[in-house]
Structures are given as structure tokens and as C-alpha cells.
């Protein structure tokens, strides 16, 4: 590596560090410093001791770990078969299944929960039916297990997306050699395929764990308060008390997130998952025996039915007038859609704009950070990863207040508009909050890529930049896409920072619109209609960006072949 190059690397690293400092570290510190200080400004760690004296907080901490761990387990059980069967076997409808499998990520705030309650709640359709037929009901949505159920249904696509990308990248020669040596079925999967897909699986599993550990929306909707994120949120948002314990809880969540992340890299330490041959289009897919196919299809259909139930519920709700204590709505109407189109068409444009910017920036930052960490020897480069990922543990309210506080006195150039009133700040908040998703996917993709491919390109005379642009990025395309999709989808339903940062109705995205509707008695129908539109808009947005990137990558591939690079 020559010195000019490492200078360029350092400059990029510094630019990323500056971005993270300005939009993540500084704003967050302006809020959470409360955890470390007395009201006269003097430093103290006493609040931390007070925190650990609370049995409630220790209980909350263990509950959070339990919920996080169990959600990873259940998510894996859902995602593994979906990914394995559709990628490594000749499977009809594979693309459809993979696409439908991503939909649960777009769970509009409040509407998703309302639909889940109407289907799986105490008086939901399923329990009403069970009660009618068999005289008992199942508390799907009660307590910690309810949280695990909902979180797993909501976030398993993190694993699915990353696993699909990873499996598609496995050299089928590996599988074939194993088969020639006599391995088959479960053994083949356990010893060969799954280990090779490990980076992707771990990336997804880490995301599920971190997200569930730090999620506040689901537990609160289910009225579960004995977990850490909920405790932090309840204390931060109570009026009138400057309660440091809530901020202490936030700091502890950040530390836990970084430790969990460090743990997942530690598992990967010293192992090499890179293969030379790419899977891609040349991938040989195996055939399933008829009885295997039957099982596989049966399981997949069942899983899809359950995971897509909330969306079905939202759809029903959006066409319903009144739906109360009954298996299906009483009466149907189109009015909800009329209301929504009259009131809030501008919000769709806003959502696509903000989320497009955020997801775009996220993959650029993700590729850059992944490259700096895995391909350069810059000192302290790992910290970029840790800091960026810590964002997942920052409550949206904290980030929102932090932005308002930090950028209070910044004016937009040429106007007397404050920066905090400019819509771009919402897109930046999304970028920061969703960067961990894109980053994990990019890291996993680059881990699977053998460095000798780049060396080969350089030996053939390509410059470093040209190698990155024409070899590394195209070969990472699957992972980058997975990152873009997760960032984009999850940004579209972000609410807590949005509520703090919206300063004009004309700048509001759809998630805010849904929140507005769901605050009023008569708003549930229109809220659900807006939710359906959000799912469709965001789904189409993802599909087209998907195609755009794929086509681009394909034409690049063709070019590569032609030029022989």
C-alpha cells in the first residue's frame, strides 16, 4: 500500500468520523450528559450506582436480554427455511417468496400493532374463533412472550435478506464436493452451507438482537414496561422531572449494543469465509424430492400466512367502517382512501425523498466503512463501526432533541431559516438511525469476497479506485442491495425522531400522517388506508431501486467480461 493511498483512506475515514461526530455523537452527548452530571454541571457517576441499586432495572435488563435472544431464535426458525429452500434449490416462486418475506419490515407505526391486536389479541379474530370452536384462547400478545412473537414476526427479514445474499454468494462447487464425499440433507446444510453463509446470518442475527433489545414501540403497545428500552423511554419522556436514570439506561443500552456487536465480530475472528467463485447466475440449484418439496412448500406457506397476517389485517382495516369485537369488520367502505388521498398525498413524496436520501447515503457510508475496516490497516478503524452501530441504541427522541439543541443557532445560507426547520434534517436523522442496517450488510458482503480478486485486478493494471468501482462494489451488489432495502424500509416507518423534527405539515412523511390518524377515534380506518399506501409505495420504491441496481450491476458484469478486467 503506498502512502498516497493510505492518505486518501485516512481522509475518507476522517470525513466519515466528522459526519458521525456532527450528526450522532455531539447531538447525543448534548442530551445524555445528564446521566453523568449534577445540576450544577459537576461530573458524577453516582447516578449509575443509583441505577444498579434498582431491582427493577436489573430485572428490565435481564428481560431485554431474554427477549432479544429469543427473538433471534424464533426469527431464525422463520427465516432459515425461507432462505435456504428458495436460494439453493429449484423452487417455484422463489423471488415472490423472498419479496413477500421482506414485507413485514414495513410495519407502519400503530397501524401494524392495531392490526395485530385485531387478529391475535385477546379479542382478536383468532382467539374469537378458537373460543367459539374449542372454548379456549391463546394469549399470543401478552407479556414478554407476546413481545417476542411480535418482534420475531416483524424483524426476521433482517436475517432473511442477509442470508439470501450470503447463500447466493456461496460457490456451488463447495456443495458439490461435499455431496461427492457423501454428505447430504441436514448434514450438508449444517457442516457446509450454513457455515459458509455465516457472515450473512450473523449480520442479520446481530441486527435482530440489537433492534429488539432497543425497540421501544412494540413493548409499549403491548403494555410491557419491564424492559430496559421501555424504562428509558418512560423516564425520558415524563414531563417535568429531569430524571437522570432514564439517560443512564440509554447509555447502558448503547454500551450493550457495542458489546453485542463486538461479540459477533469476536465469533468471526480468525475465520475466513471468503470464496473465490461467486454464486450468482452460474449457481447450480439442487432439486427437492417430491416429499421434501411437499414439506418445504407446506412450511413456507404456513410461515408466510402468519408473517403476512398483519398486512392482511391492515388491508381489512383500511376497508372497514367499524371493526369491534368481531372476527371480521361489520361493514366495508372506500371512504378511508378518499379521506387519505384528499388529506395527505404530499406525504408519499416526502417519504420517498427522505428515505431515498437516507438509504443512498447509508450504503455509501456502509461500503466505505466496510472497506476501511476490512481492507486497510488504519489505526482505530474499528471505532467507525462501533460508533455508527451505537446509533441503533439511541432512542429516537434523544436524537431528535439532540438535533434541535445542537443546531439551534445554525441558519440556512441565504435565508433567515433555521437549519432545524429544514426538511433535510429529517433525512439526516434517518440516515444516522438506519446506518447500522446498511453497514452490517455491507460488512457481511465484503467478508465473503476474497481479496485475491482485487489483487488480480490490480495485477492486471487496474488502479485501486478502479478496482473498487469495477470489482469490489459489483461483487458486493447483493449485500449492498440488502442494506439499501433494510435502511429504506425501516426509515419509512421511523416515528420517534420524526415527531420531534417535523416543523411544518408540508414536510411531514407518511409515518407522521399515520400517527396523526391513529390519535383519533375516527382515524383508525384512514390510518390503516395510509398504512396500506405506505406499504405499497415503499414496496414499489424498493422494487424499482432493486431493479435499477441489478440492471446496473448486470451491465457492469457484461462490461467486465468484455474488457477482461
Amino acid at each position, binding site marked *: 500500500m503506498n502512502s498516497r493511498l493510505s492518505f486518501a483512506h485516512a481522509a475518507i475515514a476522517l470525513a466519515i468520523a466528522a459526519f458521525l461526530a456532527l450528526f450522532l455523537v455531539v447531538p447525543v452527548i448534548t442530551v445524555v450528559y445528564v446521566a453523568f452530571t449534577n445540576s450544577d454541571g459537576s461530573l458524577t457517576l453516582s447516578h449509575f450506582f443509583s*441505577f444498579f441499586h434498582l431491582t427493577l432495572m436489573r430485572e428490565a435488563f435481564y428481560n431485554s436480554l431474554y427477549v432479544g435472544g429469543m427473538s433471534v431464535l424464533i426469527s431464525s426458525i422463520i427465516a432459515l427455511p425461507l432462505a435456504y429452500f428458495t436460494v439453493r434449490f429449484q423452487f417455484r416462486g422463489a423471488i415472490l417468496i423472498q419479496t413477500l418475506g421482506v414485507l413485514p419490515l414495513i410495519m407502519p407505526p400503530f397501524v401494524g400493532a392495531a392490526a395485530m391486536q385485531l387478529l391475535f389479541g385477546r379479542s382478536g379474530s383468532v382467539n374469537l374463533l378458537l373460543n367459539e370452536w374449542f372454548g379456549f384462547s391463546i394469549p399470543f400478545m401478552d407479556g414478554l412472550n407476546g413481545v417476542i412473537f411480535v418482534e420475531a414476526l416483524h424483524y426476521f427479514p433482517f436475517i432473511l435478506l442477509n442470508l439470501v445474499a450470503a447463500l447466493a454468494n456461496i460457490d456451488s462447487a463447495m456443495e458439490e464436493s461435499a455431496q461427492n464425499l457423501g454428505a447430504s440433507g441436514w448434514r450438508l446444510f449444517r457442516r457446509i452451507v450454513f457455515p459458509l453463509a455465516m457472515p450473512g446470518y450473523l449480520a442479520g442475527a446481530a441486527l435482530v438482537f440489537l433492534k429488539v433489545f432497543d425497540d421501544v414501540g412494540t413493548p409499549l403497545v403491548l*403494555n410491557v414496561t419491564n424492559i430496559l428500552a421501555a424504562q428509558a423511554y418512560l423516564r425520558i419522556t415524563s414531563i417535568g*422531572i*429531569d430524571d437522570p436514570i432514564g439517560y443512564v439506561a440509554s447509555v447502558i443500552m448503547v454500551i450493550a449494543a457495542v458489546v453485542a456487536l463486538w461479540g459477533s465480530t469476536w465469533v468471526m475472528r480468525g475465520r475466513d469465509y471468503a470464496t473465490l467463485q461467486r454464486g450468482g447466475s452460474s449457481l447450480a440449484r439442487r432439486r427437492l424430492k417430491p416429499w421434501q418439496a411437499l414439506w418445504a412448500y407446506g412450511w413456507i406457506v404456513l410461515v408466510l400466512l402468519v408473517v403476512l397476517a398483519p398486512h392482511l389485517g391492515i388491508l381489512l382495516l383500511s376497508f372497514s367502517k367499524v371493526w369491534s369485537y368481531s372476527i371480521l369488520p361489520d361493514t366495508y367502505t372506500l371512504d378511508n382512501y378518499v379521506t387519505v388521498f384528499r388529506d395527505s398525498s404530499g406525504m408519499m413524496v416526502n417519504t420517498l425523498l427522505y428515505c431515498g436520501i437516507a438509504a443512498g447515503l447509508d450504503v455509501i457510508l456502509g461500503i466505505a466503512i466496510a472497506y476501511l475496516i476490512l481492507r486497510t490497516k488504519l489505526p482505530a478503524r474499528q471505532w467507525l463501526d462501533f460508533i455508527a452501530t451505537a446509533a441503533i441504541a439511541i432512542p429516537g427522541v434523544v436524537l431528535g432533541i439532540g438535533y434541535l439543541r445542537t443546531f439551534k443557532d445554525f441558519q440556512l445560507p441565504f435565508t433567515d431559516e*433555521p437549519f432545524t426547520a429544514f426538511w433535510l434534517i429529517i433525512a439526516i436523522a434517518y440516515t444516522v438511525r438506519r446506518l447500522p442496517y446498511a453497514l452490517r450488510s455491507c460488512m457481511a458482503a465484503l467478508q465473503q469476497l476474497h481479496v485475491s480478486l482485487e489483487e488480480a485486478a490490480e495485477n492486471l493494471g487496474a488502479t485501486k479506485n478502479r478496482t473498487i468501482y469495477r470489482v469490489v462494489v459489483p461483487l458486493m451488489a447483493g449485500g449492498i442491495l440488502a442494506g439499501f432495502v433494510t435502511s429504506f424500509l425501516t426509515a419509512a416507518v421511523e416515528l420517534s425522531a420524526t415527531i420531534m423534527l417535523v416543523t411544518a405539515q408540508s414536510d411531514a412523511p407518511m409515518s407522521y400522517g399515520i400517527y396523526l390518524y391513529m390519535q383519533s377515534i375516527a382515524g383508525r380506518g384512514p390510518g390503516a388506508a395510509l398504512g396500506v399506501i405506505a406499504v405499497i409505495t415503499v414496496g414499489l420504491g424498493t422494487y424499482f431501486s432493486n431493479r435499477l441496481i441489478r440492471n446496473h450491476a448486470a451491465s457492469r458484469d457484461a462490461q467486465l467480461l468484455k474488457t477482461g478486467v
Partner: protein
Amino acid sequence: MNRFKLLSSTLLLCLAYAGAWAQQQVVIVTSFPKELTEAYKKAFEAKNPGIRVEILNKPTPAGVAYIREAPASNKPDVFWVSAPDAFEVLSAEKLLAKIESPAKEVPAKIGNYPINDPKGFYLGQALAGYGIMWNTRYTKANKLPDPKEWSDLTKPVYFSHVAMSSPSRSGTTHLTVETILQGEGWTKGWRDMLMIAGNCAAITERSFGVPDGVNNGQYGIGLVIDFFGLAGKASKFPVEFVYPSITAIVPANIGIVAGAKNAENARKFINYTMSPEGQELLFDPQISRLPVLPSAYKKAPPGFPNPYTGTIKPKVNFNSDLSESRYYVVSSIFDHSITFRHKELVAATKAINEAAAKLSGKNHPQAAQLLAEARELAYSPVVSEEKSKDKEFLALYRNTKRDAERTKQTTALEEYWSNTARRNYEKAAELARQAAALVK
């Protein structure tokens, strides 16, 4: 070509922005539902052409934080929410401007509760009372009698059918809790509250979670503020609403933010909401709030409750100074002994109910004794009445500074409450099971 399009559309956007900013506006931070804000926006804009109403809907705590953090050059103009505590916080931080009530005929007090802030920083704009709402399909399917009073909700028949919010999350729930405490006295009040909470299927995080859950049939009965019940009925949900005889009528408030960018328009807007025309908007079935202007009731739809003529009779003489003096204490006790220990409280209530059912009609003094002990343990407040009047104890919670020493003391108290509550509930469940085992 594409680049040209992009450039021109950007320019157009800029112009549109400039145009929007040249126009006069008034920015309102509120937690009220869309039906209400839209009705006022529309009516006010029609009356005052040239002034645009910008509604920023945020949950109350987020609204407070937003006003606090907004840059001085761009402060919003009007703050409009129910919870009086939010206004108290803002006015203590000097974030509200003084305001004179434009409606002189509004009486100074409703019951014992001042309608307008005595210090002159905010005004009551509408009135609301707390009550009980239930889903008629749910109660029919589960064969539940219609509730009328708070004390009805302590009965075993309602076990796991009720829902309420927590006073730390909702200013109106805090008022209900305080109303019950003042109406029944500290010990009896907490006893009722603990029994109601023991019957609850959930203590919801948002106050809106209760009416929402009753509307869709998740919960049978909810403790809600009147307009949620009335508006639910108006929206054709199968729900009913009743005011119990112990209730307090309290104002929902409106005020001007200190340093508001459009203070003149803010005043215009507030005057409009207090005018006869503005007050009559509250009668819209989707809104269903009680006007503060007594004369507005002349145009009320038939059957609409009127707090000034005695359709709702608040029995409690609500003492707002007492309420204020123990505000955070009551919220904190509620959370640490009820919200965060709800699972254990429900288990105790279940055991007690089952034992009581087994014992009923039988003469078994020993079992009855055990059951009485179980009830005593489960339904006694973790803070005694005596302690609740202790000035030093109250002062600890009134001091809102975050000093190491203060945090240490309050967390020690929370720890004590939380553990005592859990121990009591577990012990109560145990005793109740023993009582039940004695009766064969």
C-alpha cells in the same frame, strides 16, 4: 434535459417556499386529534383570510421538549393540550407569555378547580370530565353488568376486563387518580385503585390506548376522559359512556409561547377558540368536548352534558393545591406499585377472587382470616397517609434538580416501594391460596 428539469423544479420549489413564508401564519403545537385541529384550522382560516394555521401535532412530552428546544428566532406560537402539568412546567421555565382571557363570562372556577391559570399564563379552553366507557358487544359476550361507579370496577366480576392508563403518562389519568384519592381519602382511595388495577387487563402507556382498546374490543371497560367515550359513540362504535358520581371536571388549556414569532396571530387564534362561534365547534360529534363558555350551551345538541347546570355533578371539591403538592409522589407510587408490578398484582387479585368465591356462603373463620390478611396486604398503599403528608418527603419530589444525592434518595424509595409491593402481592397470593385450600 433531465438536469434542466431538476433545476427548474428546484427553483419552483424555492419560489413556493418563499411564497409560503411571505404569507402570515400561526404555528400551533398540540396533542389534540386531527378532527378537532382541522375543524379549528378551517374555521379560523375562513374568518381570517391571509393567515395560515400550521398545526404541529406532537405527544404532550414531545411538545414540551419541542418548545423548550426551538431556536429563539423560530418559536412556535400556541401551545394547546389537556394536561395542566405541561403548562405548569412551561410557565415555570418562563416559556409562556401572559394572556388575558377574552371571555369574561367564563367563571373563575368549576367546582374547586380554577378554569384559567391564576398566574395568568394559560386559559381553560374546554372542559372535560373523567368517566367509564365500555364496549357493549364485549360486555354482552362476557355477561358483564353495566358499570356505574368507580367502586363497581373493584368487583371480581370485572377481573381482567378493565383497562386504564398511568398518571405518569397522562395528565388526565393523574386527575382521576387524584379525584379518587381526594374523594375516598388516601387509604381507601388507594385500596380502590389497587383493586381496580388488579382487575385491569392492561395499564396502557398512552391514555389513548384505553379508548382505542375499548373501541376495538380488546378491553371491555376503560377509564377514559369523556370526549373519547362520546366521540367513539358518535363514530358508531358499539360503546357506552357514563360519568360516575365521584368525578372532577377539569379544563383543557391553551396558551401563548413566550417569544412567539407570530404573537399577534396567536392572540387572534386563541380569541377565536374562546368566541361563541369557536366554542360551538366543540359540539361536533367527532369532537364532543364541553365548552367553557356557559352561554354556548344554548346551542348544544339534545342530551349533551352541561357541567354548569348539574347534568354532571362533581361530588369532590377538588383541591388543586393538594394535588400539586404531591404530584410526582402519586405518579411514582402508582408506577412502582402498580404499573411495573402489574403482573404480580393481577396474580394476587386472581388468587384472592378465587378464594373468596370458594369461601362464599361457608363459615370458616380461619380461612376468612387468611383471606382478610391477603386483602390487607395486596390492597394497602406502600406509603401511609401520615407519610404522604410529611413535608420533607414531599419536598424530595418537588425538588426537580438532578443531584447525585437526590437521585440516590428517590431511587432508594422507588426500590423500596417496588420491592414492598412485589413482596406484598406474592404473600397475598400465597395467603389466599392457603385460605382456598382450607375450604374443601
